[in-house]
Every structure is written in structure tokens, then in C-alpha cells.
């Protein structure tokens, strides 16, 4: 896959297109899994830690993209103060731990891209997903693998063509996330009303470039 690959648009269930205009899913396949974080990426995270402190975290709600996710959370019945949006979650960790702490290459790539863009990103194991990805409400009896009980009907999930992979802004099905054995990764961005296409593409490209080893400081 070339570095210039364009993120693919995921499908959105018709009901959601009507009820939640602006909701979208974009994803990109990257031919590698996670691994150890190189020094250049660690340095980049250290620089980000210096740039991003309490005042920036407080002012996140003023920035259009994080604010758009907060509004969307309200629209789908989530409380962004109880379950922080992705960018606020990363910012909260930064404040609690005193810096962006490096974990592994994939998580660090997502952290960098989320903080730089504000866009909600996550990753799946490409070899464990079937066909195109999209967002839809669950039907009766569906659940997330590895979790007891079914999901309430109508729960919004990111799904492939056969099963739910993760809750929208929530838990991932067992075995569908990226593990040390993963060799191909799907980087996936959830777009909501108020988040421009260019920000979503930039977020995915940024995460992909870090993952491919071109994203150092």
C-alpha cells in the first residue's frame, strides 16, 4: 500500500444517515501492526507534552472539533463528562500522568494523531475484519464477542459486513483489536457533524505515517 493511499469511506446505516447527518466513518489499511516505539516518536511525544498542558486541556471545549464530538455524545445519549471523548480522554491522561507516556507504536501513533487533529481514531486488526466497515445499530440478540450478554437493540456499533467490531466510542470485541500478532492494521476515524473531511483525512494520514515510521519529531 502506498503512503498516498486515500482513506476509504465506510457505510452508514440509512436510519443513521437520516437521524444523525454528518456521521461518517473513514478508514485506511496499513500493512503493519504495532511494535516498539522508536526514539524519534518518543521525542515527538515529549515535545507534545511540553506544548500541551492544563490550559490547553481546559480550552479543548472551545475548539470546534472537540466541541463537535461533545455535542454528538449528547445526541446519542452519552455524557462526555462521564465517558470522555477520545481527545479529552487523551488530554486527561496527559494531565494525570504529567506527560504523554509512550506505550507502543500504535497507541502512540493514535495519541499523536488524536491530539494534533482532535479527531476520534481507533484501530482494528485488518485480518479479523470481513469486508467494508461501517456504523449501524445492532439488531436483537447481537453482542460484542468476549462480553457476556447481548447488546440492547439499537446500540450503535462499528461493524464489518458480518458482525459488530466495537461500540461506537466504546469497547472493542475480543480479538478484533490490534494485538502483538497483528500484521495489518485498520486505522479508523469516526466523523461527526462539524468535523471537516480534511481533519479526518489528516488524522488518519498522521497516524499512518507514525505507524509506518515517518512520524518522528
Amino acid at each position, binding site marked *: 500500500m502506498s503512503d498516498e493511499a486515500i482513506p476509504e469511506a465506510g457505510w452508514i446505516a440509512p436510519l443513521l444517515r437520516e*437521524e444523525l447527518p454528518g456521521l461518517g466513518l473513514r478508514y485506511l489499511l496499513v500493512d503493519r501492526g504495532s511494535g516498539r516505539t522508536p526514539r524519534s516518536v518518543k521525542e515527538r511525544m515529549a515535545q507534545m507534552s511540553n506544548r500541551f498542558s492544563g490550559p490547553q486541556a481546559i*480550552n479543548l471545549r472551545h475548539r470546534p472539533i472537540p466541541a463537535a464530538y461533545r455535542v454528538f*455524545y449528547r445526541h446519542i*445519549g452519552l455524557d462526555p463528562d*462521564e465517558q470522555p471523548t477520545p481527545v479529552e480522554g487523551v488530554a486527561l491522561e496527559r494531565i494525570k500522568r504529567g506527560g504523554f507516556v509512550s506505550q507502543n507504536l500504535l497507541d502512540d501513533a493514535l495519541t499523536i494523531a488524536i491530539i494534533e487533529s482532535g479527531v476520534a481514531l481507533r484501530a482494528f486488526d485488518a485480518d479479523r475484519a470481513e469486508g467494508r466497515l461501517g456504523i449501524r*445499530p445492532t439488531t436483537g440478540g447481537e453482542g460484542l464477542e468476549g462480553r457476556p450478554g447481548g447488546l440492547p437493540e439499537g*446500540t450503535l456499533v462499528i461493524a464489518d459486513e458480518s458482525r459488530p467490531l466495537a461500540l461506537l466510542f466504546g469497547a472493542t470485541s475480543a480479538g478484533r483489536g490490534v494485538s502483538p500478532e497483528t500484521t495489518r492494521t485498520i486505522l479508523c476515524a469516526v466523523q461527526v457533524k462539524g468535523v471537516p473531511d480534511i481533519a479526518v483525512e489528516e488524522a488518519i494520514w498522521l497516524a499512518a505515517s507514525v505507524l509506518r515510521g515517518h512520524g518522528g519529531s
Partner: protein
Amino acid sequence: MPQELMEIEAVDGAARSTGSLDVATVDRGAVVERRARDDLRGQIATLERRLGELFASAFPRKGIEWRVGAVGGPRVLGTGELERVRDALAVRLREAQAELERRGRVEEDFRGLLESVIAEPERHRWVRISNEDVGEPGCRHWHSRPRWGILGMLMGWWRVRLSSGCPLALGRAAPANRHLE
């Protein structure tokens, strides 16, 4: 009832009354319902943005409740649930505004007192005012104290001492350890 809620109720009521005139078929009813949900989502967006602005302007004040509570998701909410979210946001916004206004008045009083303390420390003996009291970030405080301890007390030599700020988060480290990172 909070003003935001009354404004919103007025808009919503108008939408509903307009809709009731048109409801002739089930399809039309569904369209009206969907329009109502769109309106509610717009109102929720407005209230959430106002609450976000208030949150940022409230910094560094602590102890203000910002949570609204989830109605259970992620899923597409019905009209009633969207109304609950909107009403809860409106109430929270009103309560937060009221609390900030109340604190603003108290802080203004403290600022007035601080000016008096700085101007005439001998008339405000041992008075201590912190940044938190005047609604500012940081740990600085002003303290009216006698110069030279007991001698200053006897002689009436009072002054305001300004503290140096917040203690280090991790305490003092040995010089060698400061360069580990």
C-alpha cells in the same frame, strides 16, 4: 424555570403546534417527529456549547457541578429522551451560571478587601487572602503580618507579605536527579 428552557419550550411549542396542523398521515407524522428531533438536537448543541464556554470561563474555580448524566447510549434517542437531555443541560447551565455569579460577588468583595489590606495592613491584622479567594489560578496568598515579629507587633509595624506560589508537585529533588529525563 430557567430562561434557556423557556426559550426552548417556546420554539418547541411552536414547532409542535405547526406540526399538529399538518399531521394527516402516518408518514407526515413521522416527518414532523423527525423535524422535532432535529430541532431538539440543535438546541442541545447550543446548550452544550454555552456550557463549554462557561466551563472554560469558570477556570480555576472548583466545586461546580458540570455533569448532566447520560440517558444510556450509544443509540439514536427518541423525542422524549432528547427532551430530557435538553432540559437537563438547560438546568445545569442555569445552575452553573448562578453559582458563578454568586462566586463572582464573593470574589469581588475579597478583591476590595485585598486592596484595603494592601493599603492599610495595620488595620487588617493577620488577614490572609489567597488567589482562590479572588478567583485567580495559583497558590499565591497575601498575608498581613508584623515586621520583625513581636517587636513589629508592639510597634505597630505591619506589612503585607506575598507568598512565592505553589509548592513543587514532586517536592524537592536532588540536583543530580533533575537531569534524568
